[in-house]
């Protein structure tokens, strides 16, 4: 991250870390022809998130999206990461998957959300959850141009 210090944090369940490891090991190409590979997209996403840069530019271009029951998605061109915000600027990642797979299997997104809710409950995370659904409720931005 060069000379930038961390501003936000991401936590991961063991299954999410395993998924990250698989992305590193497989080093696959983008399924949609993006210029960054999935692992490069993940690096960019994690770096952007942790150093506090903008993730929601406007209604159209946003790389963080609220879902039902305070389950959020972090997005790259190829990938989706599902989890919740334990507090502002603190994300707990539970699942990751390819966008194409989620689109192809229409029940997956609901399944992922249900599982995030279940795991959050099991980990005692219901007491540590940002329930508001605005991007400003879950993310502050370190660098914002006027």
């Amino acid at each position, binding site marked *: *991250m*060069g*000379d930038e*210090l*961390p*501003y936000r*944090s*991401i*936590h*991961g*369940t*063991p299954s*999410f*870390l395993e998924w*990250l*490891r698989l992305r*590193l090991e497989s080093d696959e190409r983008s399924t*949609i*022809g*993006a*210029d*960054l*590979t999935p*692992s*490069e*997209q*993940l*690096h*960019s996403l*994690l*770096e*952007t998130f*942790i150093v506090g*840069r*903008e993730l929601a*530019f*406007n209604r*159209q*271009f946003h790389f963080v999206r609220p879902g039902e029951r305070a389950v959020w998605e972090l997005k*790259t*061109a190829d990938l989706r990461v599902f989890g919740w915000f*334990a*507090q502002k600027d*603190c994300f*707990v*990642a539970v699942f990751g998957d390819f966008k194409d797979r989620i689109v192809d299997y229409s029940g997956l997104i609901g399944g992922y959300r249900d599982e995030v809710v279940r795991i959050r409950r099991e*980990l*005692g*995370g219901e007491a*540590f959850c940002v329930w508001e659904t605005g991007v400003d409720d879950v993310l502050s931005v370190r660098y914002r*141009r006027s």
Partner: protein
Amino acid sequence: MSFLFDIGGRKRKAASFITKVRNELLQALVEEKAARPFSQQQLAQKLGVNRSVINRQLNGEANLTLRTVADLAWALDREISFELKKRPDQSVGNYCVYHENDMLRIGSGQAPLVGSSGSPAYATVSDAKHVRSPTASTYEQVM
């Protein structure tokens, strides 16, 4: 337990640079929209492409060539500044793990969360491992 998300220096450089360029373009688009009546459709028309092309370029779904960047900068009425600089020494005190390995270090430990009283508390997310934590104890553990 720590997890090291290391894609290697070469990929890291590419990912950071391409993302930075894309984010600059997005920021410029947001600024133009805020400053005057300006839509993505107008941007696309100015460049003689379909709006979906602009979408894909700015969403990271399509390649950003140098020509594309120049075209978008022109359409957004922006100057481009580009410079290759020698890499400085990256010692950063408590975060010297970056100097040593220049990686996105993923540490372990507990996240300090603020309880309802406002005083620091710890989450009982005992199975969750930090992907990244800014706490000093995590860095000590990693180091």
